[in-house]
């Protein structure tokens, strides 16, 4: 069961596998809102957590795919036991890294052994030259003597602790009691109810849906994963009898045609059925 972490009425997904599963298996996209640890000084590409729309969270709970957990309370101070476990984990990570580092360095030495040997020989030669100049009597054959040295003899320096990598967790790694009292009230207003019904219906029809704020609508409707397709529709949820000016129709239609999308007016009629009206601009009559 996927955990949706609700923090002050906003649903988040902190687990990376859950976020992928939601997109691949359940067509729920959400929005990444976190800082990407490897590239922090930019916001073109963000990382976990994944923030869900209230519609997405409600739908997942309704379909039994996820459960809501209250995470609004601040983190607790770790117990002594936890501190010990944490330090133990760090130590183990360092020793594993040390071993990996040593093995890697050995490989490099093996590959460059000839170079290293040559370097050592020329160093020795220089030393002998110096001693000769200082008056020592050294035979010529000393210069050409081969150095007896093994690969394993070459020293590999040990890295210090601050050179090691440390894992920064996005999801809280400690096991704890889940607080299931969330007080989730979505949908409550008429507009929220309409939006949820439209979202659910379009999702059940097999589409991918994301926020439509960029195009002045409620949702953007994609025929497939948003990573691969442009959206086809801008869904605008309007109460069935709400009066709009004809100019509003012009505004919506113009917006849609400029971005090559159909504006979809979504409503619930008197028979409690969902109605969809497509609006497209025609260049010529």
């Amino acid at each position: 069961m996927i955990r949706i972490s609700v923090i002050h009425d906003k649903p988040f997904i902190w687990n990376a596998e859950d976020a992928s599963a939601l997109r691949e298996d359940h067509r729920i996209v959400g929005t990444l809102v976190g800082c990407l640890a490897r590239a922090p000084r930019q916001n073109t590409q963000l990382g976990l957590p994944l923030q869900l729309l209230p519609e997405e969270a409600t739908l997942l709970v309704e379909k039994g795919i996820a459960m809501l957990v209250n995470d609004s309370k601040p983190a607790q101070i770790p117990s002594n036991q936890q501190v010990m476990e944490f330090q133990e984990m760090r130590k183990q990570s360092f020793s594993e890294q040390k071993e990996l580092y040593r093995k890697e360095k050995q490989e490099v030495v093996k590959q460059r052994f000839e170079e290293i040997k040559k370097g050592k020989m020329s160093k020795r030669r220089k030393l002998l030259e110096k001693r000769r100049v200082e008056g020592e009597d050294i035979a010529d054959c000393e210069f050409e003597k081969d150095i007896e040295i093994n690969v394993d003899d070459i020293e590999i320096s040990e890295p210090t602790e601050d050179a090691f990598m440390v894992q920064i967790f996005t999801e809280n790694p400690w096991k704890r009691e889940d607080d299931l009292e969330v007080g989730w009230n979505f949908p409550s207003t008429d507009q929220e109810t309409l939006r949820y019904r439209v979202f659910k219906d379009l999702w059940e029809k097999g589409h991918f849906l994301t926020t439509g704020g960029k195009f002045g609508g409620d949702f953007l409707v994609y025929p497939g994963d948003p990573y691969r397709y442009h959206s086809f529709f801008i869904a605008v949820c309007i109460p069935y009898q709400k009066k709009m000016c004809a100019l509003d129709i012009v505004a919506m239609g113009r917006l849609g045609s400029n971005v090559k999308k159909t504006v979809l007016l979504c409503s619930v009629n008197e028979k409690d059925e969902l109605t969809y009206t497509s609006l497209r601009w025609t260049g010529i009559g």
Partner: protein
Amino acid sequence: MQVYLDLCEVKNWTNVTIHPCEELGVFFLTGQSSDASPTEAVLPLNSTTELSVEKIQEYLSNTELLGTESTGLLLAITDSDSTINYYKVTGGLVPPESPEEMEEKKSRRRQKFQQRKPKFVRVDQLEEYVQKLHQTGHS
């Protein structure tokens, strides 16, 4: 009236007819953009008219009674400066045109523009023009 004129003279639509609709208090127009195109229904509206989704659905269901070949309705929204915007409304989910369809439409439009009959003739070319008309069988 403006829409009628626009369709007939500017857009060169054929078979434009007026259908009054008492219960909704509006007039529908039907016509074709060319002889080869399917008939479409047009609803002239003022930019200040109030609409709701319910109203649009009512207009759409009325359109079905008109028996046009293409589904959906063209809303001709006119403004006080006599500009007309045509928007097509259809029931259901109608995806936008694919890039291929748009290319085709563009080339068709280009062809139509090139083939149009000239509206003005120079005085010194009048004789020639009249002869040509006789040849092609127009009066």
